[in-house]
């Protein structure tokens, strides 16, 4: 186990009887993830791909000692599902669901602040420790075990980079998609900190995109706190400014969040920034 998930993961799937939940439960099982339970209110007692289903997370945790949860429930119920998991003592909650209202997530985060839990997402692909556990929707076969940690705001773009690494013969320790929503449970710095203290991770790839200032903050953190080399990739050099970025939002954030700003922030602290996914692999390889 590198960070967050691995052989010790006892996974609970919230929304296991739904189309996506059931499909990805099978995919995660095929990958070898230890799925111990599912939850769908009102479907307790059923089974999905050999996994027992419970009505509530509390019941599931009591019966199976699940320690990690992945959420596939629809957006309007997802905030409640996150809080249910946290309230039941789950330590790591991974929320795949996209389209959760921002104020719902503000409420969730105010609730989680008093709990001993880590949230990844929402609107994220999840995370994977190759060869041990896949807790997400990423295609498992593109990964291979190794010592490069990945952290990304993006979903499919991460797969692209992972594939470039794997094609170049470079394995991954853990790849974490933190999600692209305005309010997320864990940010770049939270995950960089974990990689920095993980003995199985030698270097880190950070995949960012336009909007916000999280990449700039990550750059500062890397400069001040990290000893391991970091390679960055920023999507959106040719893209129009993000539509989500409101007027006053930009003031708060203290920047427009363009790719150029972010690339500059990284290069100023000595983080190399790749222009193409394949270039990420080239840079990482030099540093192995």
């Amino acid at each position, binding site marked *: 186990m590198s960070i967050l998930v691995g052989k010790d993961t006892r996974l609970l799937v919230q929304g296991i009887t739904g189309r996506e939940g059931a499909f990805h439960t099978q995919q995660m099982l095929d990958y070898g993830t230890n799925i111990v339970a599912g939850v769908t209110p009102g479907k307790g007692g059923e089974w999905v791909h050999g996994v027992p289903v419970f009505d509530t997370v509390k019941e599931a945790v009591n019966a199976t000692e699940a320690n990690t949860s992945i959420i596939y429930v629809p957006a309007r119920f997802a905030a409640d599902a996150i809080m249910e998991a946290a309230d039941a003592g789950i330590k790591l909650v991974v929320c795949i669901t996209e389209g959760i209202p921002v104020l719902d997530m503000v409420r969730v985060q105010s609730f989680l602040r008093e709990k001993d839990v880590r949230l990844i997402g929402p609107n994220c*692909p999840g995370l994977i420790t190759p060869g041990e556990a896949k807790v997400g929707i990423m295609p498992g076969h593109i990964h291979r075990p190794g010592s490069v940690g990945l952290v990304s705001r993006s979903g499919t773009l991460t797969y692209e980079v992972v594939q470039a690494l794997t094609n170049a013969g470079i394995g991954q320790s853990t790849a974490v998609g933190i999600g692209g929503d305005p309010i997320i449970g864990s940010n770049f710095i939270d995950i960089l900190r974990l990689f920095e203290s993980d003995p199985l991770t030698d270097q880190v790839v950070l995949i960012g995109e336009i909007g916000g200032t999280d990449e700039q903050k990550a750059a500062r953190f890397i400069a001040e706190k990290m000893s391991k080399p970091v390679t960055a990739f920023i999507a959106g050099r040719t893209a129009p400014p993000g539509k989500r970025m409101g007027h006053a939002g930009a003031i708060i954030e203290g920047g427009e969040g363009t790719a150029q700003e972010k690339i500059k922030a990284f290069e100023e602290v000595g983080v190399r920034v790749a*222009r193409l996914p394949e270039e990420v692999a080239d840079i990482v390889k030099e540093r192995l």
Partner: protein
Amino acid sequence: MKLHEYQSKRIFAEYGIPIPRGDVAATPVEAREIAKELGGPVVIKSQVLVGGRGKAGGVKLAKTPDEAEQVAKKILGMDIKGLTVEKVLVDQAADIRDEIYLGVVIDRARQKPVIIASAEGGVEIEEVARVNPEAIIRLPVDIRMGLMDFQARDLAFGLGLKRDHVNQFVRIVKGLYQAFINTDASLAEINPLVVTGEDSLLAVDGKIVLDDNALYRHPDLAELRDKQEETPAEREARAAGLSYVKLDGEIGCMVNGAGLAMATMDIVKHYGGEPANFLDIGGGAKADKVAAALRIILSDPKVKAVLFNIFGGITRCDEVAKGILAALEEVNTNVPMVARLVGTNEEEGRQILAAASFPSASTLGEAAEKVVALAKGA
């Protein structure tokens, strides 16, 4: 989703925020009638969903009903940054003594709503932030407690308001915060909040931007959407749940995931092409969504070639492949295309396309090179 000034101010009024008397007109005659009803000088304000109306001549004073009619005639139909003015707001002119900025947004870093206030209202808050950042007060709010009275008072005294205005201001800022929360807004802004010569506070201009993801909770607000101010393609994209932004290039792109979509555009450009659009079909898209996306891309006559870049996770390559073929059945087109499908159900997807002799590529680089060549060859 942005609301018009008049829509935003009507919502403010529901929350006890004083707004000028006034009404909306779609014709010069209506504007005249409203001005007559109001009596005294009025302001005629174009209702368009872009900034800079004033500079563009879209906001004018009128002293009499006759003048109101003339001014409305000039403004209605005017083009402001590509948008046609369909409606004007006719408001009683306020006797402006001071102008305050007051807004609520989400502070991403603190993960809380934050009230932003400045005694230097009337100009864009970005301008204040640039020129005189100390003139801006930020008050983060714990969403569980709501905005507390003492916080509102701190803000009022912090802005240096006269004592007579403090209680009025407290009611206004609490109303604005509540409007923000209850409408699931991502921005609720009064600018300017005016101190009038009659010594009362008045929300002279306002703006609300709603969180599209929460619109299902507000069917009444969803109906306020101004259909005139979206292109047909944008409208169709929104209806299909797609994220679409038209650009000026010749290579249509259909990608799953915003990050990959942007990276795909970057790479198309890297290989010498110009992207015609940003289009993210989102996660888990099924055949009908793919078909809608293809129709939208092809509705742009500048498109000379189309690149599909799908890295399946929650999206399944076979679904996308089916969608492409289904769309091609209804849309008769000669535009050349390249598909690159990898990830979840990659094999099934490739087989479906191969069976239909649809050109494909295995890496993004290869796909980008191919599509650029196709666009140039066409």
